[in-house]
């Protein structure tokens, strides 16, 4: 190894010195590196930056869209719940109303029926009372007339025989028996 090192050192002092640059290589290197930098920095890396940015936008946009969709869904859910609750309240209200209506209708019908029956009964009674009064009145006047007629007949036929007299009385009584029937058929 020491031998080897010595050889390196010797050679370094000889024709070639490794720490002295070869100027042609500097020129070539600069040109090659310049070309590399130019093409990569002009055509490749800016497009990579654009892609990175687009990717960031896509991800952020996606998150934003998802958030918006979620918010909308939440809002809709809230709205549906509210509508459902409203509908339930409404239904309950309608049921209560119907129940109240039914009760009212029943009540009213009953009241009306009662009133009607009362009215009919009252009317019947009044009619009866009126009829009775008119019958009594008629009977009175007729009885008077009949009494007068009977008395006249009795006086007129006083002289007739016993049989005739008896027959007259019977005929009168028969007539009396028919009279109410005749009066009744008038009505």
């Amino acid at each position: 190894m020491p031998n080897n090192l010595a050889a390196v050192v010797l050679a370094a002092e000889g024709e070639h010195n490794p720490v002295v640059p070869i100027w042609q290589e500097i020129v070539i290197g600069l040109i090659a590196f310049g070309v590399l930098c130019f093409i990569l920095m002009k055509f490749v890396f800016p497009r990579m930056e654009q892609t990175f940015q687009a990717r960031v936008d896509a991800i952020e946009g996606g998150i934003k869209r998802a958030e918006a969709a979620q918010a909308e869904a939440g809002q809709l859910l809230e709205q549906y719940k509210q509508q459902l609750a409203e509908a339930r309240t409404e239904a309950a209200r309608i049921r209560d109303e119907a129940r109240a209506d039914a009760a009212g209708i029943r009540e009213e019908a009953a009241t009306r029926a009662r009133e009607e029956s009362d009215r009919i009964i009252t009317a019947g009674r009044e009619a009866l009372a009126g009829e009775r009064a008119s019958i009594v009145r008629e009977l009175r006047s007729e009885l008077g007339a009949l009494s007068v007629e009977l008395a006249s007949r009795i006086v007129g036929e006083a002289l007739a025989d016993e049989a005739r007299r008896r027959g007259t009385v019977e005929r009168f009584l028969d007539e009396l028996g028919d009279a109410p029937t005749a009066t009744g058929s008038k009505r």
Partner: protein
Amino acid sequence: MVRGLAAEVPWPPSVDDFFLPPIAGPDNWFTKFTLFVWVAVAITIIFFLVAYRNPKLVPTKSQWIAESAYGFVRDGIAKDIIGAEGIKFAPYLASLFLFIAFNNLWGIIPGVQLSPNTHIAFPAFLAIISYVLFIWVGVKRFGFAKYIKNQLIPPGAPAWLLPLVIPLEFASTFLFRPLTLALRLFANMFAGHVILLVFTLGGFVLLGSDNFALAGISIVSWAIAIVMTIFELLVALLQAYVFVLLTSVYVQTSIAEEH
């Protein structure tokens, strides 16, 4: 025959192993080194253009690899070291990282196994660009005088220490930074190549020796060469990372409000 093979092996490895004759043409315009640099640059450009010809939000595999390379430098170095401002330096830093890494990787590509960065010319010009960059952003931010003052006078240094502190700060910032940047990369790649040479060529030398036991050890020597190749892969990427990281740190100290 084995003896003959071993006899042809240049031993020991020397600095001259790093200085190969030009492939064609005069001087050093067209050598293995410049060729490998061009090929590395071409591969990098083609890969990135192809991988990113049609970028999608959900990346394909090659697009993902290309984005990862850029994202590593952008988020792992530029943003981490320099802060939010660092993103505007990310394209340059990523280009720098890819250039160094791909050139370093020549050091372990079978059949090549020689990185252009073993010639100091390449690390040197990269270091000079970093040097110009960090001074330029500092001057642009604060103006020349304020920037120099920021760099040379640490806040809170007592006045009587300034004659000592100023030369030290000047040397560490304006002399040693570029030198160490260049030398670190160059020396790592140079040493890596020497190590591979020692164990690979050493295996042939041992195989050709008269001693039977020593010939057997050549297997061990080559096994170490393989392990070292894997190690060199790590070094190649690590040195690219260190170079870019230090460039970022220098830029950050230039534009920092408090030195």
